[in-house]
């Protein structure tokens, strides 16, 4: 009975939050909360909704019925008496253990939240370094390209943008390793034992595609702003070129770039699975990879939800920052 109420309330929250005004801070927070509740529904419901039996998949179809039963119990699909649990009941148990931070890994029998908390700082450092590389290079390249529109530097930066987007990190990573770690022996091959030096190659592998995307975006955005009327007005009234450029054009052109940076941070977190596997970087991505390899479902679910949570949080922060730099948008009811 309680289980049905919880499921009903969750569904109602998810659906009704569509009516919440998202131009206030409180509305944004409610909307984010509802989406995250929806994410728990997806993560817990997928065990039932996807075609095929997850227990067959984890144990193979030759497994003894006793071990199948144990696993089904661990996954919350059957109860202590061996009876099949309904979805509301399963969801209630999932949510209760999630909120009491009491999900146990199949393999280590430790709390999955603890395991994630141990690995998260590594991924945060790596993602941050990748973002720093991207934010330092991307907008710079993009602006330089826009200033030399249709001349050689523009073509070179645009080429970098196109190639950077197309070369996947799981190709760039091994290439960097081949050149800098194996041939030149300048940097460590894997792990995180050498501090800063261990960080260099993974951050470049992760940051390049991002830098390319930001180059493309800031070039397009800059070209658009430079062709607008207010720039012509500013030039016509005799302002110094650098005033027009920095105070008028650049500030406006970077607004969409900020959104992209926020959105991309989540993609970086999710993409960490691949990069961390290549460089054996002991972060959340590698933990997710290992847990998928061992079919440690509770750990997989925790990793997935934690990444979705951080992603949602960062988007919220981006929205607020967006409101601060763009006077046309206000979030949190700030009146100017």
């Amino acid at each position, binding site marked *: 009975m309680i289980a049905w109420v919880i499921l009903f309330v969750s569904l109602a929250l*998810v*659906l009704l*939050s*569509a*009516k919440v005004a998202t131009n206030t801070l409180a509305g944004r927070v409610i*909307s984010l909360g*509802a*989406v*995250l509740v*929806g*994410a728990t*529904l*997806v*993560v817990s419901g*997928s*065990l039932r909704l*996807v*075609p*095929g039996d*997850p227990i*067959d*998949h984890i144990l193979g179809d030759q497994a003894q019925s006793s071990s199948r039963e144990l696993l089904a119990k661990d996954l919350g699909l059957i109860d202590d008496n061996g009876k099949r649990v309904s979805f509301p009941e399963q969801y209630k148990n999932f949510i209760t253990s999630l909120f009491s931070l009491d999900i146990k890994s199949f393999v280590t029998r430790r709390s999955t939240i603890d395991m994630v908390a141990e690995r998260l700082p590594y991924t945060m450092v790596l993602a941050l370094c990748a973002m720093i590389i991207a934010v330092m290079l991307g907008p710079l390249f993009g602006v330089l390209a826009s200033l030399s529109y249709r001349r050689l530097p523009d073509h070179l930066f645009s080429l970098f943008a*196109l*190639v950077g*987007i*197309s*070369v*996947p990190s*799981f*190709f760039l*990573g*091994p*290439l960097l*390793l*081949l050149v800098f770690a*194996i041939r030149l022996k300048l940097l460590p091959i894997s792990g995180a034992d050498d501090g800063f030096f261990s960080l260099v190659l993974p951050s470049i592998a992760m940051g390049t595609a991002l830098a390319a995307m930001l180059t493309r975006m800031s070039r397009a955005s800059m070209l658009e702003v430079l062709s607008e009327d207010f720039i012509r007005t500013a030039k016509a009234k005799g302002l110094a070129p650098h005033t027009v450029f920095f105070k008028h054009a650049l500030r406006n052109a970077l607004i969409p770039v900020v959104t992209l940076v926020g959105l991309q941070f*989540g*993609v970086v*977190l*999710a*993409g960490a*699975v*691949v990069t961390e*596997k*290549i460089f054996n970087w002991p972060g959340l991505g590698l933990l*997710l*990879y290992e847990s*998928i*390899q061992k*079919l440690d*479902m509770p750990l*997989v*679910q925790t990793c*997935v939800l934690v*990444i*979705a949570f951080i*992603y*949602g949080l960062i988007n919220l922060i981006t929205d607020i920052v967006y409101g601060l730099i763009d006077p046309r948008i206000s979030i949190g009811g700030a009146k100017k």
Partner: protein
Amino acid sequence: MMRLKSRILKHSLLKVGLVIFITIALVGIFGPLLVGSGGIGPNLSHHLLPPGNGNSLGFGVNGIDVLTWLVYGARMSLMISLLVTLSSIVIGTTVGAICGFYGGVTDAIAMRIIDIVLAFPGLLLVLYLAAVMPPSMFTLIFAMSATGWVAYARLVRARVYEIKNREFVVAAMALGASSFRILVRHILPHVVGPVIVQASYGLSVIILAEASLTFLGLGLPIGTPSWGGLLDQGVANLFTAPYLAVFPGLFIAITVLGFNFLGDGLRDVLDPRSPIN
């Protein structure tokens, strides 16, 4: 139609993209007939033999033939990305058209489902779906379509919503056309262009996603020839057999580059607001 053709031929980026796409497609369609299927399976005496000296492009773990895997991998990548894109377009366009045209409760519910799918950044949801299902081609296509339709649904919904208040739609309504007829005959033709542009970017995203998933051991079953599988072997044997990572990486990068060129070019050609028109 003639104008469109001449515009396509004038756009050099688009031409390069088309050439890359056609080349990869030809390799995928006819390549397997030329190289045969003998090199797919293991041949222990060839374990990790490097390229050259009559070894063509070299051999992988347990002596699989790199060239055979590259050629069959091209077929696999194209087949999967076309199937996923097609099913995403069908689901996404249907949902988007209904939501944009009728609005109301259906629209609100669909939009919430889309928000929830988008709450998982990048490949995360595909990764999770592929992790709870046994590795197979069906799993890959299911997991990627289950998340891929969202982009098309949002795109089509926005376009339909924008077009449904135009005069020609109102005129058709006044003439007594049914709403289904208006949607299919009058509105959807205007959505085709943006959907094609989105699809050519989508193809490159799916090729990357398929390779990443297979690289992580979540995609195709072990032993199925694919670019991602070859790359995985390459990264594991980077000291002894770096060519195993370089060849499939190059194939993936060039294919993705081609689709991106195609997307950029088609956007320029099909978008009436673009400067070259």
